[in-house]
C-alpha cells in the first residue's frame, strides 16, 4: 500500500523509540560499556514497564534551511502494542498506533489519515523480540553504548545509505527514557526529550484514542 511506504520512516522511528532498540548519547564523562550490556539494560528496564506516559519536547533542526522547529506534546505507550503521540498547537497533530495500524489527525482541520503497516513492522512484533535476553548484536547496525552516572546511552548507526545516519536513546536503568535523537543523512536532526515520565499508571484504551 502506498501509504505504508510513505510512512515507512515514521514507522521505523516509532518502532525504534517504542522498542527502545536503539540509541545513544554522548557525554564528556561517559564511560563506554559493551553494546550488549547497553542493549540488555534497555531490555531489562523496559521489562518492568506495562505502560508509560510522558511530556515531550520535539525539536527538528533543518540544516539546509537553518531553522529549528520546536514542538511540545504528549506520548503514551501500553504493552503490547499501543502508542499515542499528540503534538500541541501550532503544529497540532495526533497519532495512534495499534500494532500495525496507524491513524493520524492533523493540519488546520484535523484531517484524518489511516494506514496499515506490513505485519513485520507492527508494534507487537517488535516487542515480542524484547521478551528474551539480548545475546547478540543485531545485524546491519553498529552500536555504541556508554554509561554516565545512571544514564545509559545507546547509539546505533545503521549501515548503508538509508535516511537515518544515527539514532540515539538515553535512558535510565528503570526504563525511563530521557531523550531520543535521530540524525538524518541530509544533516537534519530530530530529537525528542521526555519529561515527567510516569510508568505503570494503568493506561486504558481510552488513552489511545485519536479524538481529543
Amino acid at each position, binding site marked *: 500500500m*502506498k501509504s505504508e511506504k510513505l510512512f515507512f520512516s515514521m514507522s521505523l522511528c516509532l518502532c525504534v523509540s517504542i522498542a527502545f532498540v536503539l540509541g545513544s548519547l554522548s557525554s564528556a564523562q561517559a564511560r563506554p560499556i559493551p553494546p550488549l550490556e547497553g542493549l540488555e539494560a534497555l531490555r531489562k528496564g523496559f521489562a518492568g514497564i506495562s505502560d508509560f506516559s510522558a511530556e515531550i519536547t520535539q525539536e527538528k533542526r533543518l540544516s539546509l534551511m537553518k531553522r529549528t522547529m520546536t514542538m511540545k506534546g504528549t506520548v503514551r505507550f501500553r504493552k503490547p502494542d499501543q502508542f499515542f503521540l499528540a503534538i500541541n498547537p501550532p503544529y497540532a497533530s495526533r497519532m495512534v498506533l495499534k500494532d500495525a495500524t496507524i491513524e493520524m489527525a492533523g493540519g488546520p482541520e484535523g484531517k*484524518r489519515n489511516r494506514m496499515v503497516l506490513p505485519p513485520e513492522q507492527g508494534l507487537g512484533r517488535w516487542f515480542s523480540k524484547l521478551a528474551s535476553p539480548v545475546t547478540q548484536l543485531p545485524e546491519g547496525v553498529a552500536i555504541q553504548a556508554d554509561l554516565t552516572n545512571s544514564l545509559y546511552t545507546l547509539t546505533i548507526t545503521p549501515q548503508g545509505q538509508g535516511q537515518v545516519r544515527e539514532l540515539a536513546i538515553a535512558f535510565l536503568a528503570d526504563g525511563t527514557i530521557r531523550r531520543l535523537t535521530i540524525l538524518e543523512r541530509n544533516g537534519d536532526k530530530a530529537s525528542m526529550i521526555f519529561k515527567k515520565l510516569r510508568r505503570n499508571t494503568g493506561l486504558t484504551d481510552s488513552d489511545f484514542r485519536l479524538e481529543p
Partner: protein
Amino acid sequence: MFKQMLKHFLKIIAPLLLLTACSTARPILDYNPEATLETLSAAVSMSVVTADNGMSGSGFMVYRRPDQLHLVLLSPFGTTLIEIFSRGEQVTLLYPGNATAYVGTIADLPEKGGLQGWRLMRWVMDAAPAASSAMNGTLERPGVQGLPEKVTYENGLVVSKSTADGQQVYYSRYSVAGGVPFAAELELRNAREDRIRIVLDEPEINSPLEEAVFQPRLEGIRILPLSLLRGITP
C-alpha cells in the same frame, strides 16, 4: 491518493504557500504599498480535503520570488518524509527514506498535465494590496494571466479572489512585516469542492536565503523521471 496530494501541492498548495501579500482585513493594517515580498520562510500546517480523500501534515517551507519553493513535510517523529523543490516548471520530489528523487516538470506529473498549477500559483500570488488602506469592496479585473477575476478588498487588503470557473482563494490572519502585508492563513476552493487550508507560523519575510536552500541534495540519491511516479509514495 498520492497523485492527488502531488497535484494539490504543486497546483494548489504550493501556490498558496508561495502566497505573499494577501490579507484578511478586519483591523486596518499600516502597510507600505510599495513593499513587496521577496522571500518567505515559515512553518506550515495544512489540510487537503477532496471529494474522495484528504491529507494533512506539518512542515516547513521557504519561498523566493518569483517561483522558487522548497517544502519539507515531516513525520510525527520529526523526520523528513518528503521534500518538494520547484523552480519555474522544474519539480523535484525527494524521498529520503528511499534515497530516491523524482525529477521533471509539472507537465510530467500524473494526471492532467500540469501547467495549470503554475498558472494558479501565480494567480494566487497576485494579491498585492491596494494603494490605499481605504480600499473596500469587490471589483472585476483581468487577472495576472489575463483571465477575468473578482477581487474583494477590505481595508486595502485582498481577502478573496474568484474566477468564473470556480476557483476561489481566501486570505486571512494578516499581519505586516517590513511593510509587507502577509496572510498567515489561506484557503483555496474549487468547483469540485476540493478544499485546501494552509496556516503559516513564525513567518520570516524578506530575510536573505542562500541559493543552496532551493537546491536538492541528490548525492547518493537514485534519480528517476517524475513521469514514473505513481503516487506520493514511490
